[in-house]
Structures are given as C-alpha cells and as structure tokens.
C-alpha cells in the first residue's frame, strides 16, 4: 500500500539526514516560511493598523484582498522567478507579497471590528491616539489580527511547497521529485510531510491565538463580528486562507 510505503520512507532513518534528507528540507521549508512571514509582518502589520485606526484606505484593502484571492500564486511565482532568477530572496519576496494581503486584512478588520463607542470612551477619558491603539484597539482586535497571520502562514507554507518546482528545496521537493520520476512513494511521503507541517503550524498558531487573547475578547464581540464579516463581506475576510497558492 502506497500510504504505508510512504510512511516507511518517512520513518526510515536513512532518509532523515543527508543532502536530500527530510530534516534539512524541513529546515529549509521553515527558513523560507520564517523569513517571508517576517518580511510580510514588517510591512503588513503597520499598514493594516494605520488603515484600521484611521479608516482611510478601506477600499484599498477590499480591492487588494479580493483580487489577491483570484491571483494564481503558482503562475505569479514562476513569472517573478523568470525575471529575478533563482535564489532565496526572490522566493522570499514572492511569498511575502502573497502573505501581506491577509495580514493587512486581518489587522484592518480587527481594528474595524472594535466598537466605535469603546474607542470614543477611551478618547473621552484622555487617552492619546497611541494609547488608544496600543491599549484598546490592538488587544480587542487580537483574534482577528492573529487570524490574518495564521492565514498568511498557511498560505506561505503551501506556496513554499511549490518552490520545490523552481529548483529550491523545502519539503515540496519530495513532491516535485516524486512526480518527475514517477516515484509516487516519495511524492506521497512529501504530501504527508507537507500536510503535517501545515497542520502543525495551524495548530500551533491556534494555540497562540487562544493563549495571547484575553479571555473576555475571544468569546466577545470580536468573534461575532468576525463571523458576520466573513459572511457578508468576503472581500476582507480573513477567516480563510487559500491553500496551495
């Protein structure tokens, strides 16, 4: 059975280390993911917070996230690689570009979900704009901000899988090599590894989301708004991510 053969491939210590081993490729996959996420956060979080706090550029967010969803990331990756050439930084650039819209959308819709009256009250008791942002808006918006980061991370992990196709490594390399050489055991093993990584990352971030968010917030208004936002204005929703890129 293919599944068992693939499992056997994964647990075989001979496949763990070495140049084409599971461990170095996992490390590479995590490296791509970490770097891209870092770059995307550096840009996405401030932009999202500014838009969310000021309310300016709302339409930009909606347009950005809407068209981003339609963009075939696989094609975009190959297109950009043709111009920039192979390498770590072109890949990080593409992955970061893909991850920025969900991060901005999460930060924006998080701040947008904060009750107007709460903000006005904070202003009325004399908080500065920075204090409002740091002590009122961000804590209340955390579930949605983290939701956006979670989507972005999964998006990056999924698209980094395809990076195996453009000569880089990462866990996707098993999939690509397996397909190229019609060795479906290896391809299947790659699929299991990638899926496991995505699930682990998702679980970990879900845990962080639970731990970081104050208990009153996670079950409160933000959650409800999150759901309604997801339903009625899918353009800015962060409730989902696009797998596979």
């Amino acid at each position: 059975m293919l599944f068992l053969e693939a499992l056997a491939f994964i647990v075989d210590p001979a496949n763990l280390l070495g140049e084409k081993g599971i461990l170095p490729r996992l490390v590479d996959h995590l490296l791509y993911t970490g770097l891209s996420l870092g770059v995307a956060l550096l840009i996405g979080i401030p932009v999202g917070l500014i838009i969310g706090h000021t309310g300016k550029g709302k339409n930009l967010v909606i347009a950005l996230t809407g068209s981003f969803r339609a963009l075939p990331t696989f094609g975009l990756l190959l297109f950009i690689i043709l111009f920039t050439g192979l390498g770590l930084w072109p890949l990080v650039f593409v992955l970061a570009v893909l991850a920025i819209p969900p991060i901005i959308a999460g930060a924006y819709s998080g701040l947008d979900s904060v009750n107007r009256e709460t903000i006005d009250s904070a202003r009325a008791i004399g908080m500065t704009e920075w204090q409002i942002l740091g002590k009122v808006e961000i804590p209340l918006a955390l579930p949605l901000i983290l939701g956006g980061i979670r989507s972005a991370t999964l998006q990056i992990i999924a698209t980094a899988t395809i990076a195996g196709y453009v000569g880089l490594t990462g866990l996707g390399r098993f999939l690509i090599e397996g397909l190229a050489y019609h060795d479906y055991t290896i391809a299947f093993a790659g699929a299991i590894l990638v899926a496991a990584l995505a699930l682990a990352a998702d679980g970990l971030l879900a845990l962080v989301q639970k731990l970081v968010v104050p208990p009153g917030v996670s079950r409160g208004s933000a959650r409800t708004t999150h759901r309604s936002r997801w339903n009625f204005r899918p353009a800015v929703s962060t409730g989902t991510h696009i797998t596979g890129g």
Partner: protein
Amino acid sequence: MQWLWENRDLVFGLSLEHVRLSVIPIIGGFIACIPLGWLANRFRMTRAIQLTIFGILFTIPSLALFVTLPSVLGTKILNPINVVVALTIYAIAIMVRGAADAFASVPRDVIESANAVGFSSASRFWTVEFPLAGPVLLANLRVVSVTTVSLLSVGALVGNGALGYLFINGYQRDFPTEIMIGIVFTLVIAVVFDQILVLIGRILMPWARRPRRSPRALMVRGAA
C-alpha cells in the same frame, strides 16, 4: 500579443478546460454544503465534527492533496478527477461554515411564524429558510468560485491545471509572456464567474440588493 494570436486555439482550449474543471467543484461544493450546513446549524455536535474535519482538510496544501487523492480514490495520478475532488473538498470546507452561519442568520421568529401558519418542515426549509439564507450563501459561493478558479492552476503539476499548463510551459521555455497570458485569462475567468454569480443573485434574490444591511441578523443571533 502575437504569441496569443498564434496560439489562440491552445489558449482558448485551455480556458474552456479551466471553466469545465472549475465549474464542477463550485456547483458540487454548493450542493453538498446545503445539507451539511443545515446539519451543522441544527446540531451542535455535528457542527463541531464537520468544522474540524473540513478545517483539517482545508489546511492541507493543494499539491499535497492532489498527490494523496489517487491512492484514496484508487485513480491514476494524471486523472482530472483527483483535481476536481480536491477542489470540491476545498469548496465544501469554505462553504460549510458559511452555510451553517447562513441558516443561523434566518431570524428565529420568522421560522416560528412559518411553523404557526402550518409549513411542514421540508417546505419551510425550501420556501423560507433557504431563500432567506441565500445572500449569505451567495457571498460564500463567490469566495469559493474565485478560490477554485485560481487554485486549479496548481493542478498543472499533476497534469491537470488547464491554464496552469501555460505557467509550466512558459517557465520551462523561459517565456514570461506565456505565464502572463495564463494569469490574465485565469483572472478573466474568475471575474466572469463572479459577475455571473452576482447576476444570478440579483435575479433570484431581488430583495437582497444591499448586502451591507444584513449583518444585523447575525449580531442579533450573536447576542442571543
């Protein structure tokens, strides 16, 4: 442009293929989510189970799912069924939560009123709950449609990506124009699908012109 003209048959054929392969998951996902969403809304237990299962499936990157499915379904790896099934799974995963929320957004007193005037539960569902859940279902279906159209191209790596073929071919030939044309045609298909869905929504649900007003229904539920 010249390349496009010379290869118009290829691009047209791939576009048709793209439409064909993405329509099935979109419609299939929509049909499947109606009973699933209803179940999820009706019983808290099934809701948790469904959301967990589809949440996990949705987290799996598409390429991994494309490669895994043949051994689950017993199909050949190059069979287009694999891609169609994978995209249908994603479609259901997106829709099921939305559908549950859509049915939950139907005001309680409307359902009670329908009961009071003597609707059977089946006719109440089809003539009261389903139409009222329509706008929310449509909003979710639009997300599904756009996502499906753009994800399909990854299938090119397992031989069934329709327009995604242009990405791989353009990359291998070091010919960015071809990739760009693939991207543009994918976007065009996504936009056309979206507009068709909006149009269908306008025709079938003329009362829901302004979707912005409906979040209230959910707020009410959230508070209850």
